[in-house]
């Protein structure tokens, strides 16, 4: 089985892209499963179930950041997808924690960015972009060609090794190279590791301790004056 993890800021077009990819993979007789990870609301599981009749699941990360949640649940999700006899598990995850990335070492990682999001976005989203294999730029129908080309350059500056696919996802225009990448992606062979540096533990802030000031937290903390340090045992 293959795994493709797709991340990106809210409303950037992740679902729209994955629907186009799903349509094309099903036409090639692939068996798919779909998992959505979001913070507190998502209906993609119903959308994919209704539109494509494929097995779907969703999980709310609640107090955890979605990327941390992804790390926790992905093992179970892969076993579930395997049981449904899927060839490919597609995971859509909200990228909110911009310090971590949700991608798995050796397996396909896709980030979705909208062309309308401003030229500084590629500089702001850290490993979600720089550790992705493919960056899909959506909503190219809403910007001029020149602007699209400059946006591409800004992505390349932030993530020189990431392949770029530009798409009008509403009509599936331009998504074929992404479909090829999914088809050619590596097989899942445990053990699996998070790509790059794992998220910095499950920090106390992530689990809902909101009091301001590092004095209230344990684990890896940070004060204004210095770098991260460890507080606790």
């Amino acid at each position: 089985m293959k795994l493709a993890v797709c991340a990106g800021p809210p409303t950037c077009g992740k679902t729209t892209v994955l629907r186009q990819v799903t349509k094309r993979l099903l036409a090639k007789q692939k068996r798919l499963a779909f998992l959505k990870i979001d913070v507190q609301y998502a209906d993609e599981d119903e959308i994919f179930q209704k539109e494509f009749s494929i097995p779907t699941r969703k999980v709310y990360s609640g107090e955890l950041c979605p990327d941390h949640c992804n790390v926790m649940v992905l093992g179970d999700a892969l076993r579930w997808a395997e049981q449904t006899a899927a060839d490919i598990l597609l995971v859509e995850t909200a990228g909110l924690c911009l310090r971590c990335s949700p991608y798995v070492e050796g397996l396909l990682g896709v980030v979705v960015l909208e062309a309308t999001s401003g030229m500084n976005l590629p500089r702001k989203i850290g490993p979600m972009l720089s550790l992705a294999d493919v960056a899909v730029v959506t909503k190219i129908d809403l910007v001029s060609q020149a602007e699209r080309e400059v946006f591409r350059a800004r992505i390349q500056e932030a993530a020189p090794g990431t392949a770029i696919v530009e798409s009008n996802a509403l009509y599936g225009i331009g998504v074929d190279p992404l479909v090829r990448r999914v088809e050619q992606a590596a097989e899942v062979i445990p053990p699996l590791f998070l790509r790059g540096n794992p998220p910095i533990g499950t920090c106390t802030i992530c689990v809902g301790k909101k009091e301001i000031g590092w004095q209230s937290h344990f684990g890896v903390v940070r004060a204004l004056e210095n770098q991260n340090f460890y507080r606790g045992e």
Partner: protein
Amino acid sequence: MSSLDALDSRIPPSTRRIQTITILGGCGKNGVPEQLRRVDLKMGDIVSVVGPTGCGKTTLINDIELYANGTTPTGRTVLINGEPHPEDYLADPSSNPIALISQHTNFLSDLPVHVFLETHARIRGVASPARAIEETVSFANQLTGEPIILENAMTELSGGQTRSLLIADAIVIGNSPIILLDEIENAGIHRTRALELLKGYEKIFIFVTHDPRIALLSDFRIVMRDGAMQKLIVTKEEEKGVAQEIRKLDDLLLGLRQRIRSGDELDSSYLNEKLHELGYVA
């Protein structure tokens, strides 16, 4: 003009050899195959795309810009020099021979004009970016009433400034051998000046237009309906004669517009005088 012409020598070798574009027909909106099954354009051709709003003109030039390969909703295929496009056209802007000036009249980009143009010049592989940027802005400023300032944010530009800058960018920085323009007559720019400047370049030009002056300037025009290319009309000698008259009438209207703009009044003696000059009244 001459300094702009000199820039043509930096067309990258991969794109210098563009001879033809071919559009192979797909389907219209109702799924019925297009009547025009094949349109061939060769270097130097000026072509218009005409038809009512919503008939698929923008979709057609988008297909061309994306090198459609049968997978866009229209099912059209676009060939360059008789062959499918090399993959790098879209992946590497410096080798992309097509520049599209779309109907967008605002930028979403939060960059200053000079940073935007510098970045675009770099990725389009421009040899001397500083000069190209200067040329681009001076080209654009010939088309717009309010001059563009390099330090302005792109988002501050007016609709007319935006279109002017995009046209100039495509011609000077893009230096593309194939230029697609979507309804430049509605752009709030000096359209006549734009046509004069564009005529100085040997390229394939495709104008989406409702403007008879632009349509009759073309070698031929593609008539669209219900999403489909319906027929092709070659501009005959008779139409070229008509074009002369249209140009006069158009200039007359532009003159009237200019008077309104500058706060003058339009009395009948002024109009009669102009019509007399044109030989329309004794």
